[in-house]
C-alpha cells in the first residue's frame, strides 16, 4: 500500500538531506584539510606495524611504551608506522596477518598473550619480519625463522624495587609487601618472583602477599585486590597488571601506603609512587626497527635486555624511596657486574 506521492515526498526529503551533507563538506578540505602525507621520503621508507595486546594503547605502561618506541623510530629513522589495537584475543591473528598482507617490513607483536597467534601467522608470511615482545622466539612451536623474540629480565627490575620495599618495611617496623599481578604469565611472574626475592633479601622478616586479577585492562579488580592486601597489613603495593594495575596504585593512594609502578615510570601518578620497575619496551622496539632498517635484523633468535644493558631498572623515586637510593644503586651494580645472579624467575 505504498502510494507513489508519499514515496516521492520522502525521497525528496532524503535527497535534501544528502545535498545538505555534500554542501557542508565542500568547504571542509579548505578549512580542516588532513595533510594527506603522500609519501615523499628521499629513500624508500620501511613500513613498521605494531599490534597491541588487549591492554590497549593507553595502558600507561607496556603497550604505550612500545608505541613510544615506534613514534621515536618514526621521527628519528623516518619509518612509516601503523598501530593496530586488539580488543579481544581473537583479534591477534587478523591484526598480525593484515599488516603482513599489506607488505609491512616489520610487524611487532606486543606481549606474551600473542605468542600463539604469532606462531600461526609468522610462518605464513616468510618475507615479512616479525618481532614479538616477551616471547622466546626459539620456543615457538612452528620455529619461524623470520621472527625475533624480545625478552627482558623483569626479575632484575622486580628485585630492585622489592629490595627498596623490604628496606622500607624494615624502617616501618615490619609488615607485608603486596604484589598485584594481571594474569599468571611468565613476564608477570618474573617481576613478582624478583620482587619477593628482593623483599626477603633486604628484610628477611617481611611477609609477602601476591594475587592475580585475571585482567590487564579494567582497573576495578586490581583495586579490590590491593585494598584486600592493604587490609591484611600491606605497606607496599607493587602492580604488575598494566592498565588494571592502575587501580592497585589508586588503592595505595587512598589508603596512604606506598605504591610501585611497572614497565613505565609511573611517578606522575602521585606521591604514593615509591618508585617504578622499569622495562624499557620503547628502547627494544626502537632497536628492532633500527635493525631492520640497517639490515641486521635476525629472525629465529632472541634479544635479551637486562639491568646491565640499561633497558631494565628502576624509575624516579618519591621522598620515601629516595632514602634508599644508595643501597639500591649498590644492588644494581651487583646485578650488572654479575655478582648477583640467582634471582628467581617464577613464583612458588
Amino acid at each position, binding site marked *: *500500500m*505504498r*502510494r507513489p*506521492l*508519499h*514515496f516521492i*515526498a*520522502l525521497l525528496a*526529503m*532524503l535527497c535534501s*538531506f*544528502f545535498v*545538505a*551533507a*555534500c554542501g*557542508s*563538506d565542500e568547504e*571542509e*578540505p579548505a578549512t*580542516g584539510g*588532513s595533510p*594527506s*602525507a603522500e609519501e615523499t621520503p628521499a629513500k624508500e621508507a620501511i613500513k613498521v606495524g605494531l599490534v597491541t595486546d*588487549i591492554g590497549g*594503547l593507553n595502558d600507561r605502561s607496556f603497550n604505550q611504551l612500545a608505541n613510544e618506541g615506534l613514534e621515536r623510530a618514526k621521527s628519528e629513522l623516518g619509518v612509516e608506522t*601503523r*598501530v*593496530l*589495537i586488539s*580488543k*579481544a*584475543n*581473537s*583479534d591477534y*591473528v*587478523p*591484526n598480525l*596477518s*593484515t599488516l603482513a*598482507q*599489506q607488505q609491512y617490513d616489520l610487524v611487532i607483536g606486543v606481549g606474551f598473550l600473542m605468542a600463539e597467534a604469532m606462531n*600461526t*601467522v609468522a610462518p*605464513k608470511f616468510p618475507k615479512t619480519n616479525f618481532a614479538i615482545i616477551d616471547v622466546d622466539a626459539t620456543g615457538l612451536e612452528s620455529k619461524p625463522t623470520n621472527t625475533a623474540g624480545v625478552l627482558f629480565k623483569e626479575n632484575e627490575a622486580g628485585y630492585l624495587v622489592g629490595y627498596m620495599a623490604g628496606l622500607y618495611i624494615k624502617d616501618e617496623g615490619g609488615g607485608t609487601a603486596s604484589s598485584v599481578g594481571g*594474569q*599468571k*604469565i611468565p613476564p608477570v*611472574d618474573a617481576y613478582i618472583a624478583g620482587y619477593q626475592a628482593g623483599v626477603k633479601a633486604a628484610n628477611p622478616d617481611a611477609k609477602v602477599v601476591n594475587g*592475580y586479577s*585475571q*585482567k*590487564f*585492562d579494567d582497573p576495578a579488580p586490581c583495586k579490590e585486590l590491593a585494598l584486600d592486601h592493604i587490609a591484611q597489613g600491606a605497606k607496599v603495593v607493587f602492580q604488575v597488571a598494566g592498565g588494571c594495575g592502575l587501580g592497585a596504585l589508586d588503592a595505595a593512594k587512598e589508603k596512604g601506603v606506598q605504591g610501585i609502578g611497572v614497565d613505565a615510570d609511573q611517578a606522575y601518578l602521585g606521591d604514593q609512587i615509591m618508585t617504578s620497575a622499569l622495562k624499557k619496551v620503547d628502547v627494544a622496539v626502537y632497536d628492532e626497527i633500527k635493525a631492520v632498517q640497517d639490515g641486521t635484523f635476525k629472525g629465529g633468535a632472541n634479544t635479551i635486555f637486562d639491568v646491565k644493558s640499561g633497558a631494565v631498572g628502576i624509575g624516579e623515586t618519591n621522598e620515601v624511596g629516595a632514602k634508599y637510593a644508595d643501597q639500591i644503586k649498590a644492588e644494581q651494580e651487583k646485578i650488572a657486574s654479575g655478582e648477583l645472579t640467582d634471582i628467581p624467575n617464577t613464583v612458588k
Partner: protein
Amino acid sequence: MSALPDDELPPNMTVASRAAVYLRSGGFVAPLITVLVAFLAGGLVVLATGHNPIETYQAIFKGTGFNWVFPWLSEDDRTIAALALQQTLITTTPLILTGLAVAFAFRCGLFNIGGQGQYIVGSILAVWVGSSFDGMPALLHIVVAILAGILSGAAWAGIAGLLKAVTGTNEVITTIMLNWIAIWVGVWLFGLGGPLQNDDPTRVDVPVSNDVLAGAKLPVFWGDAQLQGLHIGIFIALAALVVFWVLLNRTTLGYEVRAVGFSPDAAEASGINVRRNYILVMAICGAFAGLGGALDVMGWQFRIATNDIPANQLAFFGIAVALLGRNTAIGTLLGALLFAGLINGTSTRNLDPSVFEPQLATNLTYMIQGLVVLLISTDVLVVYLLRLRRRRRTQAVAA
C-alpha cells in the same frame, strides 16, 4: 495501513509495543531514513573533529571489504578487500542470530535484552562439547556441538520466559539479570582452577578454555583456515533467517506469536495460550542467540578466554539490528550486514589511519548504533510518518 486510530499514540505504550507500531508503519523507508539521519549526525561529529566525513565514510566502506565486489580493483587491493570482507561476514553471522533473538521476541510483544547471556551460554556449551569427545566423527561432532549451543541458549532464555509466564516478571529485568549470571559463570568456569579451564600443561596459568578439536571446527570455504577465513556458519545463519520467516508466517505457532504480539488480551480471549507462547518464544530466541555463540567458537574463535566474555557486545548490536530490520527476516539480514560492516570498517585493522583515527572511529560505530536505537525508540520518525500518512489520507478523503 496503520493499525492505530487516527488520534495520538497511546500514552502508556511499552517499549515492545512501540516497536510493534514502528514495525507496522512506514515501509522500508523509515529504517532507511533512520540510518541516514544517524549517518548524517555521525558525519557532523566527524566534521567537528576536523575531518572530512565523505572521505571518512569512504574509508570505512573500504574497510568493510564490500568493495570486493567492484570489478575494477587491482589484484593487491582485492586480496586486502577479501580479507576485510571475510572478517565482516564472520561478524555478520552472529549479528544475524542475535538480531533474530531480539526480533522474534518483539513479534510476540516481548523485549529480549538477554541475547548476550544466551550467546555466552551457547558458546560455553559449544566450546565444551567441541573440545571434548575426541574421536567422534567430524560431522556428528559439529552437529552435537551446535545442538548443545542451541539447546543451552534456549534453556537459558526459557528461564526468563517461564518467569514471565508464571509470575509475570518483566522479561527486560530477568534477561538482563541472566546476562550477568552468564558472564560471571563463564568467567568462573574458564578462570584459573575453574572446572573448564584448559588442561594443557603449557597453559596452566592462562584462564582460557581448551581449544575446539579439529573435527568440531566448522570448515572454512573462503580464505585461509588458519588466518580466520570465512567459515560455513554464515550459511547456517542464513538458514536461520529462513526458519525465522517460515516459523513466523507459515506455522500455527507463528500466527499465535503475532496475535499475542498485537494484543495479549485479545489473543487470550480467542483461546490462545499466552503463557505457553511466552515460554516458547523466549526459548526460540535463546536458541537463535545460542546458535550464534556456538558458530563463533566453532568457526573462528575456537576457545573462550575469560577476558573476552564481558567484552563481547555483539548481542547489543543485535538489538539495533532487529529494530532497524523492523523484526523481519530480510531486514535483520540487512541490519546485520550494516552493523558488521561498521564494526569492521571502523576497526583499527581496516580503517586507513591517515583518513580518520580508528580510535575515534570505533566510537563512531557505537554512536551510530546508539542513534539508531534512540531514533527508533523515541518514535520520532514513527510519529512523523503517521502524521504524514494521516494528512495524505485526509487529503484523499477531501478529494
